[in-house]
């Protein structure tokens, strides 16, 4: 059994020995992306399991071990990890945990510490926790090397494009489940490519982007365009079906087409913040230069993805990060970076500009940054875009689905009415004033 080694501050380290012996558990957020991340980590020699446990047990473990006033995502992520150690059939002495640490003034940077406190409370203090971050906590047995980061970026790009096109096909597929089958088909295919060391250059990625678009475009679809509903919010609530009570499924079942902006912008945003810090407050030029390089690289990948979507002639493409950034002028400053920061507002604005004025803004109950960038900006958005139709929904272990669904239904009723009016106006051929 691996020896438990602590650093000078008493933090339990993940050692090289553990890398060989331990299984690392990874909480769920975005199944497609995280599935690919897992494969990439397996190729690096880590034993990694993707958790999919859900339900009341996860919430209960969270409630038990995490301060109940902490945000819901912390409660669920920690609940999921602890539930898995206790009930997932693992040897607790042979598991380690992954948790991301973005750094920044939001409570979220504290998840890793809350997780360690929770482990201690649960009598599992011997389980090492690995911070997945840009250099916040170091472990001898785990390193985010530049080459691994690059691979993960590719994984993210593939994840984003697959989720994007699948979302555009799923509501209209003639044969139920066709889009999902195509998703797993491509996941398998990409994993196979990764194993053979392929798919990891921009040139190859562009090729596979085109193939992905073509394959999804070939899925037979039918029906009138449905009401599109954008989903923005705190990153975990926005993406995790465990947290948002299957929001996307609910929207689909209500006959809407969910539009969920991807992960790429968030990553670029997090890097850009370091650049913005130097610009706003001063600092080392080298930090700025390095971050700018990283940012430019991902932005280039993003342009590849947008290019593929546009070339497909079938799919709507999202805007670039620079485009999002432009939108924010007059709303929030560049320095607004905690949590999702200005990006959240920018995503709402981009959705409105791209013909999706109906939006669910999802956040944990009492989310601090969202007071400002979510609910705090709705008044101004409504004033500037009277046709916008945004509903803010709070998620929390006590909030009930029926309350959430009822509010979303109101948003949908408004969306349908607006759409119907638009249609009848179009029919009467009266000039339609630009909505936005």
């Amino acid at each position, binding site marked *: 059994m691996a020896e438990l080694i602590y650093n000078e501050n008493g933090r339990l380290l993940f050692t090289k020995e553990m890398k060989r012996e331990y299984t690392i558990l990874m909480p769920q957020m975005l199944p497609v992306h995280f599935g690919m991340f897992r494969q990439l980590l397996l190729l690096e020699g880590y034993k990694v399991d993707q958790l999919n446990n859900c339900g009341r047990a996860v919430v209960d473990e969270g409630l038990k071990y995490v301060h109940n006033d902490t945000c819901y995502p912390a409660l669920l992520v920690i609940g999921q990890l602890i539930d898995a150690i206790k009930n997932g059939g693992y040897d607790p002495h042979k598991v380690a945990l992954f948790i991301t640490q973005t750094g920044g003034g939001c409570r979220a940077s504290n998840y890793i510490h809350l997780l360690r406190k929770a482990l201690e409370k649960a009598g599992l203090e011997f389980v090492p926790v690995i911070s997945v971050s840009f250099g916040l906590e170091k472990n001898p047995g785990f390193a985010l090397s530049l080459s691994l980061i690059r691979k993960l970026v590719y994984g993210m790009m593939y994840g984003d494009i697959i989720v994007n096109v699948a979302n555009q096909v799923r509501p209209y597929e003639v044969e139920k489940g066709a889009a999902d089958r195509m998703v797993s088909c491509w996941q398998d295919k990409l994993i196979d490519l990764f194993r053979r060391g392929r798919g990891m250059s921009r040139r190859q990625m562009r090729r596979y982007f085109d193939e992905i678009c073509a394959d999804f475009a070939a899925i037979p679809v039918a029906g009138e365009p449905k009401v599109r509903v954008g989903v923005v919010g705190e990153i975990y609530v926005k993406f995790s079906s465990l947290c948002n009570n299957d929001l996307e499924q609910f929207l689909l079942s209500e006959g809407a087409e969910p539009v969920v902006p991807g992960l790429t912008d968030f990553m670029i945003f997090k890097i850009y913040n370091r650049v913005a810090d130097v610009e706003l407050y001063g600092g080392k030029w080298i930090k700025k230069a390095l971050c700018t390089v990283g940012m430019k690289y991902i932005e280039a990948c993003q342009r590849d993805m947008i290019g593929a979507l546009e070339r497909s002639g079938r799919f709507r493409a999202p805007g670039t990060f620079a485009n999002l950034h432009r939108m924010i002028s007059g709303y929030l400053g*560049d320095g607004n*970076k905690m949590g999702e920061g200005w990006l959240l507002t920018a995503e709402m604005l981009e959705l409105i500009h791209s013909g999706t004025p109906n939006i669910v803004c999802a956040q944990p109950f009492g989310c601090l940054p969202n007071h400002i960038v979510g609910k705090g900006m709705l008044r101004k958005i409504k004033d500037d875009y009277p046709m916008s139709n945004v509903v803010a929904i709070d998620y929390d272990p006590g909030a009930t689905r029926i309350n959430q669904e009822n509010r979303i239904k109101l948003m949908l009723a408004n969306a349908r009415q607006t759409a119907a009016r638009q249609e009848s106006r179009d029919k009467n051929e009266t000039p339609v004033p630009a909505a936005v």
Partner: protein
Amino acid sequence: MSFRIGIDIGSTTVKVVVLDDNDKLLFRSYERHYSKARERAAQTLRCVGDMLCGQRVKLVVTGSAGLGVARAAGLDFVQEVYATAAAVNTYIPDTDAVIELGGEDAKIIFFGGALEERMNGSCAGGTGAFIDQMATLMNVTVDELDALSLKHQKIYPIASRCGVFAKSDIQPILNQGGRKEDVAASIFQAVVDQTVAGLTQGRELKGKIVFLGGPLHFLMGLRARFVETLGLDSEHAVFPEDGDCFAAMGAALCSGDYASVEFDEALERLERSVDSTSLLDTMPALFENEAQYERFLARHNASHPPQADVSTYSGPAWLGIDAGSTTTKMALITGDGGLLYTYYHSNQGNPVSIVLEQLREIYRLCGSRIEIKGAAVTGYGEDLIKNAFSCDLGLVETVAHYKAAAHFNPEVDFIIDIGGQDMKCFKIRNGAVDSIMLNEACSSGCGSFIETFARALGYSIADFTRLGLFARNPVNLGSRCTVFMNSSVKQAQKDGASVEDISAGLSTSIVKNAVYKVIRAASADDLGKHIVVQGGTFYNDAVLRAFEQELGRDVTRPTIAGIMGAFGAALAARDLGLEKSALLDEQALERFTHSAKPVTCGLCTNHCSLTVNAFDGGRRFVSGNRCSRPLGGEKAEQPDLMNYKYKKLRAMQGRGEGSGMRGRIGIPFGLNMYENLPFWYTFFTKLDFEVVLSPDSSRKLYLKGQRTIPSDTVCYPAKLLHGHVEALVEQGVDAIWYPCMSYNNDEGIGENHYNCPVVAYYPELLAANVPALKKTKFLAPYVGLWRKKDFKKRIAALMKDEFDVPPKQTAAAADAAYAAYEAYLTDVRITGQQYIDHARRSGQGIIVVCGRPYHIDPEINHGINDLITSFGFVLVTEDALSHLEGYAPRKVLNQWTFQSRMYNAARYVCTQPDMQVVQLVSFGCGTDAITTDEMRSILEQGGKLYTQLKIDDISNLGAVKIRIRSLMAAIQARKEQ
């Protein structure tokens, strides 16, 4: 003729309407469904069978509980706000806005321009169910509450966010003798404030306003509050005849879009759905069978005090009174704790008359055989009762409960008391009360909560909880506050849960709330080995059983669980060893009179709502005060660093040493300005600006900006900013300066030096939400003060652009500003040290209040500092001590400057025997969810007590008093050891 039917199934009522071709109302009904929504809807529909039998009809369901019914029955559904808008468009087309209150929802719809609809979020209880709860609390029917409100003289400020908060405000007012009429009107006013503040979010309510929904239909007092608050005349306030059924009418109107159906077919579908249930989230039963229950009862009934008979006993006796929040408990005991007489009853909002009546009865029973040698009182109404009846001793509840518990189990190491409104848990360490945990204002889902629920469903509390004992599939309702539980119950009803399952679920919820929210325990061992449970709520076997199940351990429930406070008080009275009690005797009771009058104290900015109680013989008792001034005494000038800092900061306005010729710059006095003002004041006055500081915070100032608050769950200190900036605009300043600051100053005591997101970015929220700011120059640039050189460069450029200030001058002003800020910090530290020296010279205890700089605002702390010093403590703050400790690694990410100071101050306190910490926490403060646990662990590891005071816009200090007095009792007990 084609008929259209609308069915609105809400959280508490079912509304059914039938419309003809001309939108005329043929039939309407409005009935409570007592949690049996489907049955009620089907029954009502059957009533109109005669009219509609054999017809093809269009039928649409709406309402918050309607979604589930519609799904189960395969009927069409429209969202209720949408339906209401349709009805208003048809019947009252020139409407500008609709306010609709339902059982648990509040909605506002704005017409004109783009239609805008708002519903209360998940945390908002100021609705019909809330009014029901309040009526229960006051022991009147809702109609009586309404009638009472029309006779009010004054309005008390009551927290308007959610029901639980309001409850913690109302209870003490009632207990301190406030008039029921005034409280009734105040409750309605709270609903109005809640609706207006929570839902308008920056859009003005004006023009013709239509009021809908049950409460607004039936309650004239509520109507009056709305009309008065919004300043409407009869033309602009419309209360339609069928205002309680508008959503149902709207549903019927919307039915045009849906297919028609045979009436009998629709009715049958609805009736069929009654039986279908789809329960998902259930828990194991409380008891498997009767035998198990019997064993359980036998075990608990063994803890009983000695028998004593009041009709035969002769000798001395001692009286204990527990004037609790909802109930009054009394116990008369013999020397060995034998119970001669007990009393346990709801105090019906008037504890004085209950105690009077009981005392008379006790004297009658005692005759000349029994002599009362001492009387002690505890509980919320302690002061009032003590003064009214001249009791010998008043003691804090925690101590009374410990005394009682130790009587049954001398080894007791953990006590949990769940009463009507509050929950108290504390550990016993070395024979003294230690580590007190009270429920925060947000989770008071205690006894009165089950009671209200029981009544709403048409049961007595005893019957209701008994139903749950043998429920097969108790519903899992979560562990959050009352409001959340309400909607959980709604969900369970939707899913077709039986009353039995809901009852058992509620009992378990209360337990989970206690264990996870209040005690924050991970296992039974966190509590203790010898747990004594008490409080009226534990009389419910279901709650007790759920508690044992949750902990996996047997506990002790004395048979007198409900009167343990009174019993403990009686024991304390006995231990006084008095020869004769000062308690009013039988003759004096004959002459006893009591009247209460509400008064607002005008002696300082706290504006305490006082209640002046007058008794016979000119005796008076004033309650509701925070200091001794309204009692005629001078405010004791104890050293108080919060007070000192506040005065010092308030003085930083005007031209200072400059000429003021560059114009008037407004600075909102809130959030981080409490830290940064010395910097900006010097900076701007050096540059010849006149600094205009926004006024002192006050309730009034808060209300001024309330309508522009977009997020009702943000902390109160942030909400106050809306009023501050509006006031500055009104003062006609040339510009308002309120920079965004992601980063605070770096004091080298943490991993980073952030501000919290709210502090950092609130200026941007204000710019987007406060229309008045468009009338002025609102400057909210990002600044980073911790990089002095960079800051100087950047601020010079900004001042050049905005005010044409030569960069050299700006640089000089910045240097002066840094110096002034340093001087301020130093002054606070030196003054703090002087206060500490003073305390040590005079032998006084020292309380270190740890919070944020803005917690010194009297409107935010509600005079907690006055309360603390009134108990004879010297008060210093965290920033006076934090520099005395250096950096140390923490178990949490220590990345916020203000929070880092608290950790350091707490570490320092651990080294000082005469200091204790009181941590102030604003409700809704996300960062404090992290700091509170860390503070507790620092202090407890250092052998200190941890006391946390949670504050909001609530201004009542009842709970705060309990904590501070318990803290004092614990300090005392430690000293005695």
